């Protein structure tokens, strides 16, 4: 698969990354190498092999339904860039 400028831009948009013009060429090259690596793996015939989704054999790791500590108001907003009253405040995220 060929990494195009458009694909790089789309991935950046999805990840909410603002990639400076100067970084694009080497990022594109890096990404291309990763894709080539995966392409290589895909040459292997894995038909009939169940995908390995989880890395442990553990199943049904559940906890009882008991409410425990929540964060204090001070802790909640300690790392928030912006808040107003008891709300977080973010740039407007719908079209008018």
């Amino acid at each position: 698969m060929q990494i195009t400028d458009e694909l790089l831009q789309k991935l950046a948009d999805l990840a909410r990354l603002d990639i400076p013009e100067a970084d694009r060429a080497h990022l594109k090259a890096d990404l291309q190498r990763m894709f080539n690596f995966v392409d290589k793996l895909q040459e292997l015939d894995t038909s009939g092999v169940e995908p390995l989704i989880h890395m442990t054999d553990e199943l049904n790791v559940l906890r009882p339904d008991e409410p425990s500590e929540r964060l204090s108001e001070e802790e909640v907003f300690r790392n928030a860039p912006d808040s107003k009253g008891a709300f977080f405040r973010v740039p407007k995220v719908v079209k008018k």
Partner: protein
Amino acid sequence: MAAHLIPYEPVIGLEVHIQLLTGSKFFSTEGFAFAAPPNHFVSPVTMAHPGALPSVNAECISHALTIGLATHCHIQRSCFFDRKNYFYPDLPKGYQLTQDRKPLCLDGYLEVPMPDGSLQRIRIQRIHMEEDAGKLLHDQEDKRSYVDLNRAGVGLVELVTYPDIRSAEEAGAMLAEIRRLVRYLGICDGNMEEGSLRCDANVSVRPAGEEKLGTRTEIKNLNSISFLVKAIQYETARQIREIGEGNQIRQETRTWDAARQITLPMREKESADDYRYFPEPDLQPLLIPQETLDQIRKTLPTLPAERFSDYHHRLKLSYNEALTLADQRSFSDYFETLRTLCSDEKSAANWMLGPVRTWLNEAGADIEAFPVPAAHFAAMLQMVSDGGISLHIAREQLFPAMLESPATPPAELAAKLGLLGSNGGDQLKEVIMSVMAEHPEEVARFRGGKKALMGFFVGQVMRKAQGKADPQQVNQWVADALSQP
């Protein structure tokens, strides 16, 4: 033929979000409550602090299995969670934990009571588990949105129907049945105003008889059953009109404007969605043990639709009466107990729908607060059907007295209040008349001169009055009644 002359039929499917009734959230351990102060119920997991890991609330799984089994779904015992990736401030993690590839429940159905009294089967495509998102307020400021994360992470199941629904009224009946069901099962409070039950509708139209589906729109923000019905009615008419005018239906998300009673295209998020689902690596997969399924299946109550059908078809109650009696599980459970204790089920039903409901409405209470034990209620009904007391006196005097002194057996109360004795003239007369009606031969022999039968009649009346009538009064009235031709 002009397009608007062809009869069109709507094709409707519902997506219902059911907020699970639990003490803590699905993947994080803090509690939550509707209308709490903003950002009151927040933890490091909800905030997506680095290193904070999710954990699965067992009760959410159990609730999801309960509705899956109650709706006759196939349970995918082996399943897992997926990440649905999107950047939006309602979930700080940047993804929603959900089930995409392997939902817990597949291919079920619900039998839905329709106004003609029939049960119609609406098929369910899937029920999957996921977490709820936080709430955004867009109208506080021009350039900012406000975020409240109390709801973020709360357990949900999403139930998706097949497009089996053919009218707005059927859609309303389906949603009402889902609400009844989740309340019966105790997995959700079913409160649509507070958003613990939310419904989106997919609506398209096609010429009647046509197989192919038309282009559909999705209507969101339907927070009551009546809004769902009205929105589908409006949307169906709008689509038929558009097609009649030669326009294409645009596949889009619309919202119901309750003030103007119309659907409108919705404001959309800034970028096109590309969710890039993948299996959640921070949570282990599930393998639901067969014993768990068996155990939950054993606890399932008789479902509201079955009760409705029984009340409507066997007890011959009207559609509305049957639905009212089946609507709330505790109310219906009380009746189910009552009917096993008394001989006249129909009159027990009428008492539930009449005096009991009136009392509950006036007290603003649920049946749990109704003080009279079912056994006493049944004894009172028995006195009425045996003629020991008239229906009128039972309703006006004995029933209110029972509400005052619920621990006292009704026969004792009736005696204390003299409802069977000298003050209960009407009832006593009714008892005497019924005894005479049951023994025409003895009446004829008495009138023929066999006066010794007097004792027989008095004995019968006293027995029917459960020994609470005044014997002197009974003697005199029986004599009077027998001497009249």
